[in-house]
C-alpha cells in the first residue's frame, strides 16, 4: 500500500469511530504488531540507503498524524461517555423542593419588635416586670388609691393569694425608677389582663409603655417623641391629633388619635402625658427636681392597624393557617 492511500484511510477511519472499542480496534489496525504503519516501518530496511531518510521522514509524519487523530478521537469519545452517563441523572426540575417550612413569629411579637426596635435605637432600655402584681404597684404607686373611680376603668382580676394580674404595664415604670433612678429612658412591652371580653377586648392583651425621666422634661418633648414614632410606624403623611384625657398617673394627660385615610375617622392609638409628681415622689425621686413623660399603647391595636385584622380575637385563636401566613 502506498503512503498516500494509507493516509487517506487513516483519516477516514478516525472520522467514523463512535466508541472506545472501535478506537481500540483502530489502534490495533495501525500500530498493532501487524498494524499497517508497523508493517510499513519494517519495510524501511529493504530500501536502498539513499531513499531511507526521506521514507523515514514520511513514516514519521504519518505517525504524528495518527497521534493527533487518536487524541482528538479519544477526547471526543470521553466527552460522549460523560454526556451519556449524565443523561441518566436527568431530573424533573419542576417538582417541588424538599423544603422544610420556615416557622413564623406571632404577629404580636413582630409588632412589638417593630416598636421596641424604634425606641431602642433612640436609647431606650427594654424593661420587663412581673405579670402578677401587688395592689401597691398596679394602683397606689400610680396615684390610684383605693376607691378611686379610676379603678373602675380597670376591670381587675384578683388572685386567691392576695395579688392581682397587672391591668397595665405601668407598674414597670415604678419598679424601674426604684431600681435605676434618673435619668431614665425605658420601654416596657408585656402582657396585661382585664376582666373584659367582646369583639374588641380579650381578657389578656399586650401593652407597650415608655417612660422618660430627667430634669426639665416637658410636654413638647413628649409630643416630639410621639410624632417621630407615628411617622416611623404609620408613615410620614399620617394626620395626628392630641386631645386631653385622664390618667391618674399623668398630668397633663393626652390621648393620641390618627386619621384613618379610608374612613376619615379618628382612631385612638395611645395615651400619654407628663408623669404626675405624686408618682415621681412615691417612686423615690424628687418631683421638684425631676419631671418626665410616659406613653402607652395596645399592641393588638397596633397589629390590627398594621395587618388590617378585622377581629382582635383571631390573634389568640392560634389557627396555624392564620399564623403561618
Amino acid at each position, binding site marked *: 500500500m502506498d503512503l498516500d492511500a494509507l493516509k487517506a484511510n487513516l483519516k477516514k477511519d478516525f472520522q467514523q469511530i463512535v466508541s472506545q472499542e472501535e478506537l481500540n480496534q483502530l489502534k490495533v489496525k495501525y500500530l498493532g504488531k501487524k498494524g499497517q504503519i508497523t508493517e510499513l516501518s519494517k519495510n524501511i530496511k529493504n530500501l536502498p540507503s539513499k531513499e531511507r531518510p526521506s521514507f523515514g521522514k514520511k513514516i514519521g509524519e504519518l505517525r504524528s498524524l495518527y497521534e493527533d487523530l487518536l487524541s482528538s478521537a479519544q477526547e471526543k469519545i470521553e466527552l460522549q461517555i460523560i454526556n451519556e452517563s449524565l443523561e441518566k441523572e436527568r431530573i424533573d426540575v419542576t417538582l417541588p423542593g*424538599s423544603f*422544610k*417550612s*420556615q*416557622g*413564623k*413569629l*406571632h404577629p*404580636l*411579637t413582630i409588632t412589638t*419588635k417593630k416598636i*421596641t426596635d424604634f425606641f431602642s435605637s433612640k436609647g431606650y*432600655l*427594654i*424593661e*420587663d416586670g412581673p*405579670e*402578677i402584681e401587688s395592689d401597691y404597684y398596679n394602683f397606689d404607686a400610680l396615684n390610684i388609691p*383605693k*376607691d*378611686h*373611680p*379610676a*379603678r373602675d376603668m380597670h376591670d381587675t*382580676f*384578683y*388572685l*386567691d393569694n392576695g395579688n392581682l*394580674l397587672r391591668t397595665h404595664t405601668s407598674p414597670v415604670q415604678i419598679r424601674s425608677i426604684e431600681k435605676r433612678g434618673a*435619668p431614665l*429612658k425605658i420601654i416596657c*412591652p408585656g402582657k396585661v389582663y382585664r*376582666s373584659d*371580653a367582646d369583639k374588641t377586648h*380579650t*381578657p*389578656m392583651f399586650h401593652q407597650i409603655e415608655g417612660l422618660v425621666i430627667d430634669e426639665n*422634661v*416637658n*410636654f*413638647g*418633648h413628649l*409630643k*416630639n417623641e410621639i410624632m417621630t414614632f407615628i411617622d416611623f410606624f404609620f408613615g410620614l403623611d399620617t394626620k395626628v*391629633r*392630641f*386631645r*386631653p*384625657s*385622664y390618667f391618674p398617673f399623668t*398630668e*397633663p*394627660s*393626652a390621648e393620641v388619635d390618627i386619621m384613618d385615610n379610608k374612613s376619615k375617622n379618628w382612631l385612638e392609638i395611645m395615651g400619654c402625658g407628663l408623669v404626675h*409628681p405624686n408618682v415621681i415622689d412615691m417612686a423615690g425621686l424628687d418631683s421638684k427636681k425631676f419631671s418626665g413623660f410616659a406613653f402607652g399603647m395596645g399592641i393588638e391595636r397596633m397589629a390590627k392597624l398594621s395587618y388590617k385584622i378585622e377581629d382582635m380575637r383571631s390573634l*389568640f385563636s*392560634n389557627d*396555624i393557617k392564620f*399564623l*403561618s401566613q
Partner: protein
Amino acid sequence: MKVLYSNITKAIKAKPKIESLCYDLTLIGIEVDEIKSFQGDKIIDFDLTPNRGDCFSVKGLARDYCAYKDKKFSSVTKSSFKGKTKFNKKINLFAKDACPAYSAVSITNLKLIKKFPDYIKKTLKAAGIQSIHPLVDIVNFVMLESGQPMHVFDQDKIEGDIEVRFAKTKEQIKILGEKNLKLSRDCLVIADEKEPIAFAGISGGLNHSVSKKTQNFLIESAFFSPSIIKGKARRYGFQTDASQRFERGVDFNLHEDALKEALAIIQEIYQADISNVETIKNKHFPKKKVINISIKDVNLKLGTDLKENTIKSILNRLEIKLIKKNKNNLTFEVPSHRFDLSIKEDLIEEVARIVGYDNLPQIKNDSITQHYEKSDYDFINQIKTFMTNKGFNEVINYSFLDRQVLENLDIENKSISIKNPLNHSLSTLRTSLLPSLATNLEFNINRGQNFLSIFEMGKSFSNDTHMEYLNLAGLIYDDEKFKNWNTNQNYDFYYLKGILENLFAEFRIEKIFWKKSQNDLLHPYASADIYLKNKLIGTVGSINPRFIKSLGLNKAFLYFEIKVESLPRNDLGKLIAPSIYPISQRDFSFEIDNKVSYEQIENCIHISSKNFLIGTKIFDVYDGKNISDGKKSIAFRISWGSSKKTLSEEEINKEANLIISGMQKKLGAILR
C-alpha cells in the same frame, strides 16, 4: 352619659352643628362615644373620664364648652322660691365633713294643674332613666341638667327627725330594687329615729320610697363628700346616677339652688303646699381650694412662651380666679365644681386644654442618655427566632385556663386561682404551657391539619415565692399519611432533642445533661429531663398515652418545656484558631450490653483516651440480626489531633488500644 343635643344647644345659647360641637368637646377632653337619632333629636353618648365630675350634667358640659369657645356662660338660674309652710323636722348632721350641708323641703296636698311636660319625659328617656313618679322625674331631670342628685321620700313613713350619720354595727337597708345591704360602719346613711331611710348619696331605702299612694313628700338635696361615697356602691356591686356623681364630686354650692330649681318646676305644674327650704350647714363645709403657680411653671412644663395675661384670661374663662399676686407667685382660687384641680400641674393642664394640645410646640430632646445595658428581651427574641428557623410557628395563649384541665393532668398543685374569673374555663393560672399547646393542637386537628410544629414563650405560674416563670415550650405532631415526595423526616425524641441541643449550642450553654424523665406527663421510657449542671431546667419527650384522651386528642405528640429564666445569658464565646496539623480518625464497632447508655460509653472513652482526643461521633446503633440477645452493636468514629504536631501512627494506635481495653474492662464491650 347620654345627653340630648337640644338640651346642650339650649344651655350654650347657640346652635353649632352636632359634628362641630362634638369635635370641639373632644378637643377639650370630653370624648363622644356615639351619636344616635332620637325622636327628631339626637342623643350624644359621652364617655366621661372619672376626674371630670363637673361635666356630669348638661350645664357642666356647656360651661366647659363656653370656656373653650370664649363665650359667656350663665350657670344657675336663681329661682326666687319662697315656701308657704314651715319645714317641721329637725335635721342633725352627725357625720362632720362627710355631709356638711343638707337641704330639705316638704310638699303636701299635691294636685296636678297642667299637663306633665313632655321635655322632661323625653330628657329622662334619652338618658335611660326610668320614669317612677312625677316628683322623682322632676328631681332627676334637674339632676341631669345641673348635676345635683336629689331624693324624694314618702314623708309619712319617716318617723321623727332626720339625721345624717354613719351606719351602726349590723345595720341593714333594703334599697330600691329590693336589694338588702348589710352596711359597714364606714357607710353614710340618712336615718329617721328608727332606722336608715337612705344609703346616703347612693340610693334611697325601699321602705321610705314614694309610690302612687304617697300623700306627703320630703325632698332631700345635700352635699356628700366624694371621699365618703367613693367605692361604696361598687363594694355592693352596683352603681347609681347619684353615686357616680357624688363620688366624682358635686358642686358644694349647688344643693340649695338645684332644689329650688326643682321646686320652681313643681310649682309650675302642680298646686301644692310647699314648706320653706330648710338648709343646715356645719363647720366642716368645704372652702374653695387655692393653688399657687408661677408663669415660669406653666411654660417650663409645656415648653411654651405664654404671657401672664394669656394664662390669667384662660383660667378666668374656666372660673379659676386670680385672687393674689406676690411677685412671680400667682394664687388662684378653684371654683366649687372642680374637685379635680388641686396641684399646679392640674392648672397647667387646664391652660393646655384651652390653648389646644395640637397648638402646643413639638421640641426635640436627644440630650437624655443613660448607661447602656443589654436587655433580656433580646435574648428572648433570639430564642423565638431560633425556633422559627427550626420550623416552629409561634403561638400566644391566655395565661389562664380551666382548673379541671390541670386536675386531669394532675398538675393543679400550687396553682393560683382567679377570685373573679370571666368564666370557669378561665379560672386558674396555668402551671405549665402544655395544656395550652395541646388545646392549639386539638383546634388545628379539628380544622384539618395533620402536621403541627408550634412553640410558645410565656409564663407559667406557681404559688411560691417566685410566682411566675418564663417558659419555652414546643410541640410536634405528625400524622401525615402523604408526606412531601422527597421528604423522609422521622419526628421522634431524637429529632426534638437535636433541636434543643442546637439551641443550647447556639446560646453557648454548656453542662447540659439528659436523664430518663421523672415527669409523669411523659412517656416513662422515651422521655428525658434536662439538667443544667444539677438543676432541672426542662423536660422533653412524647406525651404519656394515658393523658392523650383528657387533652381531647387521640394520638401522641412530642413536647418539650424549658425554664428560660434558668438559662445563662452568655456573652460572645471565644473563637479558637483550628490546629494546622491533620486530624486522625479511627472507626470502632463494639457489641455491648443493651442497658449501657451512650453517656456511659462516652465517659469511658474520655477516661480511657486522655491524650489528643478531640471527639466522638456515633454513626450506628443496631440490635437486630447477628447480634446476641440483650446486646447491641454501636459504631463510632473517634478523632484525635494536636495543635503542636502531626500525630504518629504509634501515638494513635496507643490511644485506640486504650479505648478498646477500657471499653472491655469497664463496660464489657467486645470489639467486633
